[in-house]
């Protein structure tokens, strides 16, 4: 029983990692680098959108991602402990 709980915990953690790291990759390497020319066609206030992602947006998203992970893992940890 213990083992099943542990495995479920780890699987869930891996799922969070895959989702959050995909977003991490998309905003920086995707929007900021690979797709930058396409996004630069779009004007975002005084910025070209691709340029904004490369120099501002990606950094904001990074911060948010870590805090989302903190929230998710604290919940998961609590759940893991209480179901033991």
């Amino acid at each position, binding site marked *: 029983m213990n083992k099943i709980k542990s495995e479920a915990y780890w699987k869930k953690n891996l799922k969070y990692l895959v989702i959050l790291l995909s977003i991490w990759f998309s905003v920086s390497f995707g929007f*900021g680098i690979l797709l*930058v020319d396409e996004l630069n066609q779009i004007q975002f206030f005084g910025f070209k959108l691709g340029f904004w992602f490369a120099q501002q947006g990606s950094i904001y998203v990074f911060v948010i991602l870590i805090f989302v*992970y903190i929230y998710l893992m604290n919940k998961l940890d609590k759940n893991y402990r209480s179901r*033991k």
Partner: protein
Amino acid sequence: MSLQLSIWLIVGLTFALYIGIAIWSRASSTNEFYVAGKGVHPVANGMATAADWMSAASFISMAGIISFLGYDGSVYLMGWTGGYVLLALLLAPYLRKFGKFTVPAFIGDRYYSNTARTVAVFCALIVSFTYIAGQMRGVGVVFSRYLEVDINSGVFIGMGIVLFYAILGGMKGITYTQVAQYCVLIFAFMVPAIFISIEMTSNPIPQLGFGSAGSDGVYLLDKLNGLHEELGFSKYTSGSKSTLDVFFITAALMIGTAGLPHVIVRFFTVKKVSDARKSAGWALLFIAILYTTAPAIAVFARTNLIDTVSEKNYTDMPSWFKKWEDTGLLKFDDKNGDNIIQYNGNEMINELTIDRDIMVLANPEIAQLPNWVIALLAAGALAAALSTAAGLLLVISSSVSHDLIKRIIKPDISEKGELFAARLSALFAVLLAGYFGINPPDFVAATVALAFGLAAASFFPAIVLGIFYKKMNKEGAISGMVIGILLMLFYMTKFKFGWFGGGAESDWWFGISPEGFGTVAMIVNFIVSISVSKFTSPPPKEIIELVDNIRLPNENDD
């Protein structure tokens, strides 16, 4: 109050503060010396990490580099922040759960091998030494520029201060001085930025002013793009590096960040696993304040500079122009003898050479801010350099005293003896760093990039596989680390120092610059590690149990 006096006053006050903190937080055990007794609050640890991470280069040079590179400068912005996501998600919590003092300790234990431990110590020492030499130099430069002492005396003063609080307080002293240093440096960075943002866009938040319009109603970035085209530079918002190279450099910096021992070790200092995650979040938030402001400063300063000097009469230049000319950071060479400054992208007609550091250092003067702001900037630059130097120093001393002496050479050493060894190695490290600060090897600038490449090519795969791939064994990890590092060293020395026949930009493999090659070496490390582990015996049962244990939260509240 004169400028000189206010600088001495503010720098003196901050130094007194650091020393006061060091005396208050003396370390009395190895646990306190290496990891601050594992009792640091996550927000305080976040601030300390941010100060540890942001070096003299981040504070003084980065905005200037970006202002010259435009879009291409994004590699530093994304590269030096994105690594924290990897740290928080893939490394920090598990290493904290593992619960030892250093990165080589994790590698040595997880791969049940003193060979792996020694390889890791070797990597940690190279990475940290290349870094610290640059920091000591930075301290000297700031002193000489603002306090009118020569660079060498500046290095000595810096060495004395760092030595005092690092040796006395160890990680505990360093942590709390770094908290103070973060406050000083971020305040010093933001005050001029806010003033200049208001001046240029009437928006007090630089991150927003960056995307606003100036008094003429034209968006700042559009205006700058226009000026660039007019003067023969490439457009500010689009780069000139190849997309592939930008991709690889960004990846190498991110992964290098996540593999730097002086950053990782900060996560050993908190009480719980959940606190390790929290500190990574706070650290990135504190870093992001500076990193999102720097590109705004870059644009303000560049626009301001072009407006002030381009096509203007040399005799009409404001006083700061002459002052910075004297320091050699600004050079005007009137090629066509018309006494008018031609600033142009074409080297043949360009008459103005601008050092990148001037964008931050001269900004308050260009924007005509009061003296105390300039003094603050000097204190901030010193805080940035000292905090990073101290963090690196600790990694060097703990690698030697704990991983080499205690774990390999003399395992029966007493706690007191180990603490003494730690302090002694810190002393030697400071002296060596000071020596490099006074006689900087030509390759200091080049080796900072090397440090990231090395960290990416060596530590990152070994740690990540150690946590996420149970079957990874010592044979795989050691061969991966050794091959990754050697490949990186080979490529850097070949294309940076001309060893092994050298080579020009056109000879780069797949068009990837040495700065971006860490990513390639890291991929090779992963492939080698995994392949070798398939053909050698799996790790023993107790290691599998260790990994299982690292992956799970503690039974109670940690």
